[in-house]
């Protein structure tokens, strides 16, 4: 596909957008994984939320 004289600007706009959106998605995914891992570690040590304790059968 020929973008003409200003092809560099068009490609740069889409490349920057892809990098920013991929970076944002990756950051949110990794943040979620880290939070779940740390929550699981605390729960493994027996530290649970009150509502979670109430849901746990005796």
């Amino acid at each position, binding site marked *: 596909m020929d973008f003409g004289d200003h092809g560099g600007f068009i490609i740069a706009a*889409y490349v*920057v957008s892809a990098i920013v959106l991929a970076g944002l998605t990756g950051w949110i995914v990794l943040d979620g994984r880290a*939070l779940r891992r740390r*929550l699981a570690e605390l729960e493994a040590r027996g530290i649970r939320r009150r509502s979670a304790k109430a849901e746990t059968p005796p």
Partner: protein
Amino acid sequence: MPMAFIELANPSRFLDWSGRLLPFLWVATGVALGIGLYLSFFVAPPDYQQGETVRIMYIHVPSAWLAMFGYALMASAALGTLVWRHPLADVAARSMAPIGAAFTFLALVTGSLWGKPMWGTYWVWDARLTSVLVLFLMYLGLIALWRAVDDPGRAARLVAVLILVGAVNLPIIKFSVDWWNTLHQPASVLRIGGPTIDASMLWPLLIMAVAMMLFFLALTTMAMRNEILRRRLRTLQLTAAATAG
């Protein structure tokens, strides 16, 4: 507020239904983005004045719309924090801030890359560009303020007030091209009297806008789930510290 909405906005219920919604949201985003990019690059014609450079519009305009839409949603959430003190309202606002900032950054960068070949300059201090830069700085300031205050409840109320004050910038951005003499072109889609863009360019633009909106919603949903988990983690860490003490 309707009871059904309050029920759905319960943090535990939100984690439950949003977890089931997310896969559909991502599939819809992928499909819409695929169609939107295909139309933008292979179907939409070059502009009679701008030539191929007009293709930057299909990423720039949706980014700019979402930059403002994100802030408008944050302002609604700020009302939810101040008026109803709903815990999910602050979660929503806090989660949207970095996403809104990213879309504002994209609007500025892609606009700059469009401006250089069309206007002959990457940047000019006109009303539209400057007010969008102010929006970007507002997003960054709010993120910094949330992090600066230790007490989450106090931070939520403080930031909510600032979000509402900053919302005055939204009509300034929207009408800046009408109120002042700017290098930026006036509105050509969201305007009284209907769009002035030809349908061959309008449809790809609208489909890209829907795709980016779905992307925004998917990211916001994921970030809100993270924020709920972050608050649970904080509570557990405080419990652990109290138990150890």
